[in-house]
């Protein structure tokens, strides 16, 4: 192994190859053990077909020295995904779209007598507003009557969490943080309401599936049973079509959460809102970022302001309904430079999986050029008791420049937060805010929003 190359921390389970980084470029080594399957993918025309429909990440074969010469067949350079996101950060429809993409890829592959050998949700990423399959080494030639080896993984990574979000509680998308290889099927079976036993597909793919797993968990006749299990090509297509229909029928309407109707309930006058947009727009023009993270983005109104300037934007919000509304707009308007994600800033995604590095933390995916933190700091400082100094320090870790709004205590929204608790926030005032942020940032400009007591700041990180 070439010591100068850094092997991707998530790329170790599949012996077919691995991802590595060299001189700031990303490559994938294909090992000799995967030679035949890779050539089938290319020679059958499947690769071209999937890339043509933007379903599979395109790549180029390159002639560089392999990272591990002893097992190398080829090195490919895949197109780069600018921001890696994970299923526990996706909304209901994002996970549903990723599931449908995986099934469509599988159906197309089956037409070429090729099958997916894994169906992990982590094989899907979002690029230009749409899901895309990123694992070029997931395809293998299908042997006659062979079952779909990735069926269980598909159920664990997609069907179980989607059913739980749909029938039990939308916040259960977070459960993917606990179960790194997807939600165990027996767990999903227990958590789903009894009425799902009368839903034929959920009964079969989840409830009976869980019982079958239990039946054969320690059975001594497992090898014999497995040898007998055969699935025809038609049967396999049937199961994939059935999964597709099942997932298509799962729906969740984004409503009823704290933030879904936020913009109908704000205390801003339209004058203040217009002025705020105007000032944010000017600050963005001054800072000229390539990438923006909009923290507490709600449905993404200010994210879109940044998008209109050609900036790549990630919208973060902890509310699944607001983020879902945001994503649905990305879909309907075919927006290409906005990715909405569910992230609770008081508990941002940490590193999970093997060595806590398989799925990297949000902080390890930073820094970004500019953070937008509008109408956010009072929630962190007052609702969550985070001192202003710690908020400033956090922002300094993730960005190079900052557009931040300070909402003083006299504002009715802050008054609402203080209504049912003691005001223990002596340092929460304009002076306290500025001195906390000056520890890490230089305040370039500030502006009092018209018709309100709120202040907007443009800051750059101190050297």
């Amino acid at each position, binding site marked *: 192994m070439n010591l100068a190359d850094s092997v991707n921390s998530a790329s170790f*389970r*599949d*012996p*077919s190859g691995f991802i590595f980084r060299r001189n700031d470029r990303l490559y994938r080594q294909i090992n000799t053990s995967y030679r035949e399957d890779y050539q089938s993918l290319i020679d059958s025309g499947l690769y071209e*077909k999937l890339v043509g*429909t933007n*379903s599979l990440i395109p790549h180029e074969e390159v002639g560089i020295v392999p990272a591990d010469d002893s097992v190398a067949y080829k090195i490919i350079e895949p197109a780069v995904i600018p921001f890696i996101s994970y299923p526990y950060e996706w909304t209901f429809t994002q996970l549903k779209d990723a599931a449908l993409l995986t*099934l*469509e890829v599988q*159906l*197309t592959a089956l*037409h070429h007598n090729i099958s997916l*050998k*894994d169906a992990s949700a982590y094989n899907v990423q979002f690029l230009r507003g749409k899901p895309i399959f990123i694992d070029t080494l997931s395809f293998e030639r299908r*042997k006659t009557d*062979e*079952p*779909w*080896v*990735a*069926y*269980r*993984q598909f*159920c664990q990574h997609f069907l179980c969490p989607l059913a739980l979000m749909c029938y039990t509680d939308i916040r259960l998308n977070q459960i993917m943080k606990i179960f790194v290889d997807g939600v165990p*099927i027996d767990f999903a079976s227990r958590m789903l309401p009894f009425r799902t036993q009368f839903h034929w597909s959920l009964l*079969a*793919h989840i409830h*009976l*599936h869980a*019982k*079958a*797993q*239990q*039946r*054969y*968990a320690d*059975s001594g006749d*497992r*090898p014999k*049973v*497995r*040898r007998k*299990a*055969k*699935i*025809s090509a*038609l*049967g*396999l*297509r*049937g*199961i994939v*079509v*059935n999964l*597709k229909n099942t997932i298509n029928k799962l729906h969740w309407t984004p409503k009823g959460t704290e933030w879904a109707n936020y913009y109908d309930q704000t205390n801003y006058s339209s004058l203040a809102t217009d002025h705020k947009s105007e000032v944010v727009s000017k600050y963005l023009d001054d800072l000229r970022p390539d990438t923006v993270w909009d923290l507490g983005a709600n449905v993404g109104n200010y994210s879109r302001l940044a998008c209109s300037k050609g900036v790549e934007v990630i919208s973060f919000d902890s509310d699944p309904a607001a983020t879902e509304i945001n994503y649905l707009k990305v879909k309907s308007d075919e927006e290409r430079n906005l990715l909405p994600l569910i992230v609770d800033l008081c508990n941002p995604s940490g590193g999970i999986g093997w060595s806590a590095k398989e799925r990297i933390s949000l902080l390890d995916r930073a820094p970004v050029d500019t953070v937008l933190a509008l109408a956010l700091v009072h929630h962190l400082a007052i609702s969550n008791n985070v001192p202003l100094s710690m908020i400033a320090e956090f922002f300094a870790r993730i960005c190079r420049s900052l557009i931040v709004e300070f909402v003083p205590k006299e504002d009715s929204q802050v008054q609402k937060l203080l209504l049912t608790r003691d005001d223990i926030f002596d340092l929460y005032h304009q002076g306290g805010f500025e001195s906390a942020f000056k520890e890490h940032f230089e305040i370039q400009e500030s502006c009092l929003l018209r018709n309100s007591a709120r202040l907007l700041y443009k800051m750059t990180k101190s050297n």
Partner: protein
Amino acid sequence: MITRENARRLSLSPIWILLFVSYDCYAYLDPGTGSIIIQSTIAAVAGAAIVIKTYWYRISGFISKLLNCHNDNLETEVEKTITDEPSRFS
């Protein structure tokens, strides 16, 4: 000549593995025995559903023809059901 030593060597030889082990194709992920069983059961039902659906259109098409209510789009519908090509790739 088969000596005791040769017999012992032969008995330990990996060639016996070739005779007794079946060639199950194991993937790098364990598909799970229970998952394979339920999968083959669902596949039988779902596969049959596709066949029935396909023939159902043909039967209804035949009846329609008999009743002189031929639907011009019928062939397209039958074709669509048989291939069930995913919409994104059609």
